[in-house]
């Protein structure tokens, strides 16, 4: 009889479960949650660290903006405005920046935000292991002149510094974090929210509660923000359709029609370019690449319209330049600088002495679909460029940036200024100038851009862009589009210099 009773009990439990879960279907509707002051934000990248000196940015910026302030802030168009510092000033030589911190700001542990803490934060970021630590390479020293005045001294002018201070390099955390081994998961900032550790599951769900008495209440639009990480494309689409997110970044452009069909609005950005880095411009590994005609031939051999359709499902813009429309270096005519022309490519190769064909060894990997390499091989093959793909694994980037291949296919972020482009891929110390060659012309532009402002800076950036395209230092194929989705009732203003909109620009529609 005992077993019969057990079975009955089990049946009762199942019945209760079914009953209770059926009730779950009658929970408040999704629209109600948005109005009640909670934002359910989908994120597609895990948070590297909450420790400011290890923090990443780009797609991870919302995690950090919830709990921290940055020394400066950037408007959607990239204009720098006040943050923790409400005044800032360059000296004549543009190597000394004085920032004045606003009064009365405290961290969530009660400690005051002082110039001394800010100075130490800057140095910790510069000497730390954040992926963007090199943003502060130009910083020689940071010191507190008095409690509210911070003086940053540079080795040489750095026009990107203010922007860097509006991103992860400008994050300021409480001194209590400096020696805390759990700092990466225990943020103590002066930002608009505090992390609810009880409700948070590291690497999956982060819950933030609005902090009372925040110095900039205008920028706080929700009482609570829940950030859910969606690393799986199906899960993200289900969350959109099922109403589990109010706003989210897309993972692939192919999600755009599906999200729109589910009633979400999508706003598009182009923050990356796909194509080839023709790294060995000095011909150290493959002498052919030293010849500008060979590099140009590769550019002419790309059927960019076809690549947009074939590799980006139509969500992209064909281009031959590495800068995008929001950059001061952008020139619309350069998008079409190398129209698809196989005959011209062959002719250039012949002139350079490669009439019988050119061999190019490049890396392939298993995290990009095999078809992509096949398409590239076929297109270049038509012009007589015989590509051999060398399969690599996790060591791809180390080997690639160490100069193992003369050229390689890549998806890279589009630089926001001529200066940023030089620092990222052209200067001898730039990570994507893998053979560390020095181009005197590029260095000339860098000197100009170091101190130039306004129209002068824009002209130098555009001249640099034109030079880079003429010299065919890269063979870009297209700018890839990504989307940010919002459900009705929520408005968002995208950031021109960041893949993810800034947190205070996601708000209820007025």
């Amino acid at each position, binding site marked *: 009889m005992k077993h019969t009773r057990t079975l009955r009990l089990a049946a009762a439990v199942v019945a209760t479960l079914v009953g209770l879960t059926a009730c779950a*279907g009658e929970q408040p509707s999704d629209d109600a949650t948005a109005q009640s002051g909670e934002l359910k934000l989908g994120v597609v990248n895990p948070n590297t660290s909450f420790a400011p000196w290890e923090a990443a940015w780009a797609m991870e910026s919302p995690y950090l903006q919830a709990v921290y302030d940055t020394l400066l802030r950037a408007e959607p168009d990239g204009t720098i405005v006040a943050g923790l510092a409400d005044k800032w000033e360059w000296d004549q030589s543009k190597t000394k920046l004085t920032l004045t911190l606003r009064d009365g700001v405290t961290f969530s542990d009660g400690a005051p935000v002082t110039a001394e803490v800010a100075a130490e934060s800057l140095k910790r970021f510069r000497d730390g292991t954040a992926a963007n630590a090199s943003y502060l390479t130009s910083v020689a020293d940071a010191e507190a002149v008095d409690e509210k005045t911070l003086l940053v001294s540079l080795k040489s002018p750095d026009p990107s510094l203010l922007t860097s201070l509006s991103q992860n390099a400008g994050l300021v955390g409480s001194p209590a974090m400096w020696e805390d081994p759990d700092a990466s998961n225990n943020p103590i900032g002066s930002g608009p929210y505090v992390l609810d550790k009880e409700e948070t599951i590291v690497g999956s769900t982060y819950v933030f509660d609005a902090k009372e008495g925040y110095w900039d209440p205008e920028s706080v639009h929700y009482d609570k923000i829940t950030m859910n990480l969606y690393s799986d494309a199906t899960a993200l689409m289900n969350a959109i359709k*099922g109403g*589990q997110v109010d706003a989210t970044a897309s993972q692939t452009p192919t999600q755009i029609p599906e999200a729109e069909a589910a009633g979400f609005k999508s706003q598009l950005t182009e923050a990356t370019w796909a194509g080839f880095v023709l790294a060995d411009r000095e011909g150290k590994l493959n002498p052919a690449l030293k010849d500008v005609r060979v590099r140009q031939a590769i550019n002419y051999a790309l059927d960019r319209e076809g690549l947009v359709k074939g590799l980006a499902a139509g969500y992209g813009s064909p281009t031959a330049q590495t800068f995008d429309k929001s950059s001061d270096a952008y020139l619309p005519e350069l998008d079409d600088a190398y129209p698809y022309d196989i005959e011209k490519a062959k002719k250039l190769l012949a002139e350079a002495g490669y009439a019988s064909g050119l061999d190019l060894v490049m890396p392939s990997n298993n995290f990009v679909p095999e078809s992509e390499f096949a398409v590239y091989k076929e297109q270049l093959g038509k012009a007589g460029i015989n590509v051999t793909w060398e399969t690599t694994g996790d060591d791809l980037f*180390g080997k690639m940036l160490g100069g193992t291949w003369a050229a390689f296919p890549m998806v890279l972020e589009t630089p926001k200024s001529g200066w940023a482009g030089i620092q990222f891929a052209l200067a001898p110390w730039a990570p994507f100038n893998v053979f560390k060659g020095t181009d005197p012309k590029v260095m000339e532009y860098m000197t100009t851009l170091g101190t130039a402002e306004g129209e002068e800076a824009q002209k130098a950036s555009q001249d640099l862009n034109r030079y880079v395209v003429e010299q065919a230092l890269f063979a870009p194929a297209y700018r890839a589009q990504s989307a940010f989705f919002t459900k009705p009732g929520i408005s968002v203003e995208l950031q021109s210099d960041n893949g993810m909109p800034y947190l205070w620009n996601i708000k209820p529609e007025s």
Partner: protein
Amino acid sequence: MTKFILQRLLAGFLTIASLSVVAFFLLYLSAGDAARNIVGQNAPQELVDRKADELGLERPLITQFLEWAGGAVQGDLGRSWFTGQTVTEALTTRLPVTLTLTIGAVLLSAIIAVLLGVIASQRRGIIDRFIQIGSVTLAAVPGFLIALVLALVFALTLRWFPATGYVRPGASLVGWLSTITLPIIALSIAATAGVAQQVRGSMIDANRLDYVRTLRARGLPERRVLFMHVLRNAAAPALSVLGLQFIVLFGGAVVVEQVFSLPGLGQTAITATSQGDVPVVMGLVILTALVVFIVNLAIDLLQGWLNPKMRQS
């Protein structure tokens, strides 16, 4: 019995210890350029070196292993290279979700499988054939497909359950149930099919045993014969299959957790392996080995309780 348990514990410890050695060296040797993966692909070499130095990756592997093993015996499995969280915390915060799914799925599949198995073995004929064909068909359907169909029908179309996400039972019991029901059903379907077949077969065999025939001849009520004697006899092999299913489901939860975006070990496993977060992967290996060991021990003990003959063997 105590000797049996002690022997099993010792064997378990030795297995896990040797597994740790093999796993550690395999994982660390294949870690590739871990420091570069952590600081980002665009970072200059100087930063990569700084990170490698910070994590002590330049030291001899044997030194790194001894340090890891020294911590591991004290319950300290190191810290994630990527999130800085202690591996123990990363796993213990996620283990309850995966265990809930696995235990829930095993219980659900056990209940349904016993019912189906008993019906099939007693009724035979067309019902038996229907259950058999149904079981084989369902067992062949991949778990993720079942999960996707359930999400599509019950979450996205009927809106009875949320499509993704997890609510802690402490925060809301109803919310918790609503988030785990579909994943548990998705996980249990294939398991049910396998166990039902086993119960059916064992029941048919047990029905033919002499003493069962004697009990029936003595006029014992059929229900009592069935549940007290036949089922008890058939339970031992079914339990073995169920134990095996638990282990399979524990691993299979990865896909279902991914589809429903649940913060279980599956999500950690995917993130950690794709990033090359070796300390976390090591922790997962040890934890999985522990779970397999505990489940096997529990099955042995349960079988011993059900069938005294097995205790002597």
